[in-house]
């Protein structure tokens, strides 16, 4: 331990304190970034306060396992193996490169250079792996951009995919590409500069070392300038990107891991119980209370989901995490066969409707714009096309659950408005009257077993 501490002190004392102006500019940029981000976070919290409870978040052990498996293991995105693999590379690369970004913030504030280098071999590895991943991510992003711009991928089309959605996607990808190029530029300049000055290189840079060989004719000053430009571009891009993300579909970068941690843990086939209905049904079925007046103190709340104030915090969390990849819609039987329903649209509409109505409701809980999520954003035709097959939920790489929300909207339609396709109303009345979706008498329930014989061998 003493040795490590000693070498750390030695490292620090050997660092050249950089010009204080750099530190001041950096601190101002960081404060600005954090300030804008804090504003965004408070805005989102005020929106979350408008939502309804979903399920209690328990079972931390299981949640961590799901997170390691689905988020860090990227298991669900591998359901489409080729692009899934490319995405996984980008994700894993981000995780490593993030450590370097933290170092840059420490460096920027302290005026030190490569402040994490006291980690020794671990530092070498982090830098080395990050350097390789920077190239891999840059190549992956070029592939993604190429696919989006030149190949007509069906899953990126659809009524919900407006021009703005495509621009959003391409901006986010371009930002990531610039981030990787600036990172590689920074590493390359650093390696070349150290080589020119015959100084030791902190960390491993297998990719940038190759690039550095291409610019070894530049002077130490030129290389230093290149390093500074790359360093500042990289960190400022991170700051800008971080504040763009919450307003982009790429908010996914922040939200998807927590969203997976907060997954619904029930089997896909299970719909959540409506306890408010249980209470009413119990009152109805109890002969002592069946004909009594409804208790006056019962809070007036709506059955099901009509508008944004009825959705649960999890529905809203899902909508903020969705990156519009369209894997859900691509497997939806209704969508495949040309129906209006697109599970991706349902999730996107929750976010859009919150942006539309949320600010008004934050100021005044009674606020109304005479619109609602149901009908103005999501039509009955879409809702009734769902087969609750759960293909969408199974496919979603970050465990978004679409069918429960669709059923919640049907619950509003049926229980608050008595609205449903005619055939379904007939099914309801058959179940009520004769205990089956068809109009047959319970007396006939054993007809299937008449004259039943089997061969005895």
């Amino acid at each position: 331990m003493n040795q490590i501490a000693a070498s750390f002190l030695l490292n620090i004392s050997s660092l050249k304190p950089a010009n204080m102006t750099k530190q001041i500019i950096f601190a101002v940029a960081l404060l600005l970034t954090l300030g804008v981000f804090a504003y965004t976070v408070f805005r989102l919290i005020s929106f979350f306060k408008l939502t309804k409870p979903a399920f209690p978040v328990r079972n931390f052990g299981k949640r961590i396992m799901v997170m390691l498996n689905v988020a860090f293991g990227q298991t669900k995105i591998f359901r489409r193996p080729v692009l899934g693999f490319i995405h996984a590379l980008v994700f894993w690369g981000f995780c490593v490169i993030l450590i370097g970004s933290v170092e840059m913030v420490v460096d920027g504030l302290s005026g030190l250079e490569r402040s994490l280098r006291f980690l020794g071999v671990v530092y070498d590895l982090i830098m080395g792996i990050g350097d390789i991943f920077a190239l891999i991510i840059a190549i992956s992003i070029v592939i993604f951009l190429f696919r989006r711009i030149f190949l007509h991928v069906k899953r990126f089309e659809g009524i919900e995919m407006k021009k703005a959605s495509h621009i959003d996607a391409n901006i986010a990808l371009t930002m990531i590409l610039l981030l990787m190029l600036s990172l590689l530029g920074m590493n390359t300049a650093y390696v070349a500069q150290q080589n020119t000055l015959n100084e030791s290189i902190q960390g491993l840079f297998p990719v940038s070392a190759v690039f550095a060989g291409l610019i070894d004719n530049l002077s130490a000053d030129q290389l230093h300038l290149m390093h500074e430009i790359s360093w500042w571009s990289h960190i400022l891009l991170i700051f800008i990107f971080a504040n763009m993300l919450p307003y982009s579909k790429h908010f996914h970068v922040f939200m998807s891991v927590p969203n997976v941690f907060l997954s619904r843990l029930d089997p896909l086939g299970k719909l959540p119980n409506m306890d408010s209905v249980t209470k009413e049904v119990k009152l109805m079925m109890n002969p002592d209370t069946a004909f009594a007046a409804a208790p006056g103190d019962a809070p007036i709340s709506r059955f099901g989901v009509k508008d944004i104030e009825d959705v649960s915090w999890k529905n809203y969390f899902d909508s903020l995490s969705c990156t519009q990849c369209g894997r859900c819609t691509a497997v939806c039987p209704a969508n495949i066969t040309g129906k209006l329903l697109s599970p991706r649209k349902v999730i996107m509409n929750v976010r859009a409707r919150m942006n539309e109505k949320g600010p008004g409701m934050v100021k005044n809980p009674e606020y109304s714009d005479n619109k609602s999520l149901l009908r103005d954003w999501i039509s009955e035709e879409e809702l009734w096309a769902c087969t609750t097959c759960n293909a969408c939920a199974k496919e979603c790489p970050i465990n978004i659950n679409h069918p429960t929300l669709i059923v919640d909207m049907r619950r509003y339609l049926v229980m608050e408005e008595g609205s449903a396709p005619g055939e379904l109303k007939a099914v309801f009345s058959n179940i009520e009257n004769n205990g089956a979706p068809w109009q047959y008498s319970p007396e006939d329930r054993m007809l299937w077993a008449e004259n039943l014989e089997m061969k005895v061998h």
Partner: protein
Amino acid sequence: MENKKIEIPVMADLFARGEKPEYLFWVGCAGAYDDRYKKVARAFAKILTYLDVNFACLGKEETCTGDPARRAGNEMLYQMQAMQNIEVFKMYEVKKILTICPHCYNIFRNEYPDLGGEYEVINYVQFIDQQLKNGKLKIDQAALKNIGITYHDPCYLGRANNIYNEPRNILKSLTTNLIEMERNKSFALCCGAGGAQYFKEAEKGEKEVFLERAEDALKTEAKIIATACPFCMTMMTDGLKYKNKEDEIKNYDLAELIVQALDL
């Protein structure tokens, strides 16, 4: 060879005699009323009788689980049905429920517990698979002449409850020629009937879902489409009719295939 008459025991009669069966065989509305699916109920009853299983049905005391109502948004009606059923199960001290319909299975297993109804719920594919594994059920693999079979995963067994292997184990005991559709297991395409769609016209679109799925099945060139759900069965059979393939290709339920192989 002789024929043996099967009397399906009814819970109320057994209880009147002071007997209590091990299993409740929940027939479901399709098993009781749908002419095609009645045959599946009969087939599974034969298997139960063949295996000497101690079971009974509810007969006219059976009523809808509430699944189509629930998935169509009528939570009130669902809960009324569920509580009614839970009362009946309590009266007959039901502990184990055998179902042939995946929708009934799912709702008993996953949703009734929220209303206080906790049972050991067993789908018939799990039950048959178990009997094959413990050796009580022995199938001659040559009985069906190694015919090509493809299996359509019902959403409410597959994705909803992760039951993928049991039906395949059963089919592998019947043939060495099990051909998977391109979209299978958790990737399987819905037949188009779930979520109460069965009972209504589909919304307007370019194509019926069941045709899309029937095409998947036809591509395998299997001679039999095996299903394990009453709604899937109607949809796949309709698909075969639309494609004019009903003479060459047959749609059977897993229980029916077992009965054919055992020649019951």
